[in-house]
């Protein structure tokens, strides 16, 4: 099982880079989804306008989140649902467990949900001998393999067909086969049985509509519809940021989310759920519970800069567009939420001390910002978090943050840089000294692989030259040439 943590991001990433099967899978996935997205966004008029509207709706909601949450809860309860409030992961898991016990539910099915991954609900339920069965194909695969999702939308993207065939042979007991149709029909056969037996279904939520108390689940396999309609009890776990004010707002988000996530115009299924079944003849569960979960979100909300992280609709587009994610995949981040948005959310949810590497795991290229359907300025948020790490000003209590290690050599280097670069003479002399010193390691105007000693006294030089030559300081700087000739010519 993969149990990588954010604290060892650098090692995780190095390991991922040596996994050629993973890198091929990532290349295929991110190319395919990237291309499909590009086509899909041309099928609506005014994509940019839609993004603007979506962000405006999210900003409005977040500015009055207390009001909209109350409205949502009241309307959901009026329709027969029961609303529970969970301050953190432990509370949320506790509520779900209590509900299952009250109903004496022992057979539980689950549809794909990042919120339940975030709170490690499966582990909590397993500890109480209630083993929920994941019914999304990708989620089921990684559950069988005892792994975690490596992508927000396609959780098992890191697994090859062959690995899945071996897994099914071992865990489900079928003959090893690479016939995809046979593998999926096996999954269908096994999971159908689980649906028929289930006492309770657990799901996530894509959007909760305040004015009606309705919530929406998007999916492609039909398993979420079965999870939320066949068992007598349905528990939906949602982060408090999933609220939108009006039903008509869905028009905007339904155009944005599938196109951004998978490049689809619309997912195969959209389930709108408002409360319980009304009469005995109706279909659907007798009991519907909504667990509204904070788990660090209100502290994100309280800060004017980081608030926008809560606008995220979990489409995964920024993962597919990110050059870093494209190379290392999701597990290296050591977090439920990987990629650019994960590097922003994880430090805020789990404490910046444990994930201080993540905000630096970006070249700041801005591809994430370009594809984000709700226009989250992810590079700006990464910069903000980097500054919080350097300045030791991350929000939250010391316990929540965890210890943030100061890098004294880096602090010293930047202080020296700001001091010397504020003094042109010192700057110029510094460059001249570098020019002299580099003679020992230079050839043809370039610095090749730095040896053990050089890379020990100047680690960045060693890091750069391990696979790249470094351009040497020029024999005559621009300013010298300007002084001597250029300024005299016209």
């Amino acid at each position, binding site marked *: 099982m993969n149990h990588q943590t954010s604290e060892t991001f650098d090692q995780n990433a190095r390991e991922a880079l040596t996994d050629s099967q993973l890198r091929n899978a990532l290349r295929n996935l991110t190319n395919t989804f990237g291309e499909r997205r590009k086509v899909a966004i041309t099928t609506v008029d005014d994509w940019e306008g839609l993004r603007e509207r979506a962000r405006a709706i999210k900003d409005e909601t977040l500015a009055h989140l207390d009001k909209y949450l109350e409205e949502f809860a009241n309307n959901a309860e009026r329709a027969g649902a029961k609303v529970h409030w969970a301050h953190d992961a432990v509370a949320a898991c506790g509520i779900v467990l209590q509900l299952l016990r009250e109903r004496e539910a022992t057979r539980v099915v689950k549809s794909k949900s990042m919120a339940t991954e975030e709170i490690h609900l499966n582990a909590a339920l397993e500890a109480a001998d209630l083993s929920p069965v994941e019914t999304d194909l990708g989620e089921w695969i990684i559950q069988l393999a005892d792994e975690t999702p490596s992508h927000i939308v396609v959780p098992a993207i890191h697994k090859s067909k062959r690995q899945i065939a071996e897994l099914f042979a071992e865990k489900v007991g079928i003959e090893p086969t690479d016939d995809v149709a046979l593998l999926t029909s096996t999954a269908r056969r096994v999971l159908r049985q689980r649906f028929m037996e289930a006492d309770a279904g657990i799901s996530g939520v894509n959007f909760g509509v305040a004015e009606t108390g309705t919530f929406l689940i998007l999916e492609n396999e039909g398993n979420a519809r079965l999870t939320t309609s066949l068992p007598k009890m349905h528990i939906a776990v949602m982060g408090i940021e999933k609220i939108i004010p009006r039903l008509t707002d869905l028009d905007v988000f339904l155009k944005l989310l599938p196109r951004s996530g998978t490049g689809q115009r619309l997912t195969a299924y959209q389930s709108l759920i408002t409360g319980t079944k009304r009469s005995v003849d109706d279909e659907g569960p007798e009991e519907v519970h909504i667990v509204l979960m904070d788990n660090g979100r209100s502290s994100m909300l309280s800060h004017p800069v980081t608030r926008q992280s809560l606008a995220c609709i979990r489409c995964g587009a920024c993962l597919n567009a990110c050059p870093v994610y494209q*190379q290392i995949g999701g597990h290296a981040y050591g977090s439920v939420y990987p990629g650019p948005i994960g590097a922003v959310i994880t430090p805020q949810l789990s404490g910046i001390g444990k994930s201080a590497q993540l905000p630096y795991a970006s*070249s*700041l290229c801005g591809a994430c910002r370009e594809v984000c359907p709700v226009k989250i300025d992810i590079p700006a948020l990464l*910069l903000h978090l980097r500054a919080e*790490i350097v300045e030791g000003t991350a929000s939250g209590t010391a316990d929540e943050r965890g210890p943030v290690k100061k890098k004294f050599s880096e602090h010293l280097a930047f202080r020296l840089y700001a001091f010397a670069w504020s003094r042109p003479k010192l700057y110029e002399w510094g460059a001249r000294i570098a020019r002299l010193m580099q003679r020992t390691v230079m050839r043809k105007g*370039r610095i090749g692989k730095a040896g053990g000693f050089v890379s020990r006294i100047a680690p960045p030089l060693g890091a750069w030259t391990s696979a790249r030559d470094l351009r040497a300081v020029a024999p005559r700087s621009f300013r010298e*040439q300007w002084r001597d000739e250029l300024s005299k010519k016209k």
Partner: protein
Amino acid sequence: MRVSLFITCLVDQLWPEIGTSAVEVLRRAGCEVMFDERQTCCGQPAFNTGYRSEARRLAKRFIEIFEEGEGDAIVSPSGSCTAMAHHFHQLFADDEKWRQRAETLAAKTYEFSSFLVNVLQVEDVGASYRGRVTWHDACHGLRDLNLQREPRALISNVRGLEFIELPNADACCGFGGTFSVKYPEISVAILDHKIEAIEGADVRAVVSADASCLMQIGGRLARQNSKVQVMHIAELLASQES
């Protein structure tokens, strides 16, 4: 038009040919070029690594020096350093006076190729170069300054040159400032996709508008003994080969 050159520390010390070429092209286009020797760095490395107070110190210095300059415009042969000047205001969120000064200065700060095309309205500078070249969109130029059409227009007007568009022209080269030395393996893995495309394009040179990307791409090409040259757009536009 009078132009204050913002040469950037990287060009000044590592790649002065870019600076001398930029001066030549700007003069050929009829500009009077000025250079204030007090300038050093815009503070981008500090800003991008989270050292805001160090970045603020260099930003203030930069603003003071260039405010005194008599240029009608500030021109820099770097998309990311130009973008940094456009980001200065973020450092002064709580300081109205400095924020305004930063914004006023940013409004007259241009990247070199954008200045030629959008301000001087020049798309043909009379350059000539023999061979096939391709183009790398540096991220900050592309996504912060929306620089896309301008360099391509300038390159396509260079005589004797055949332009090849890379399939991943707009993909990051993996440099990312301190990212390139904090996570060198990831940085090079990203870079190698770029290198693969460049080698596949069978070109004499790969051109860009940022010395930092060119240092990253060129460093890998040199390590692999490639025949492909890296070239800044100012160097290409100063070229006279026919």
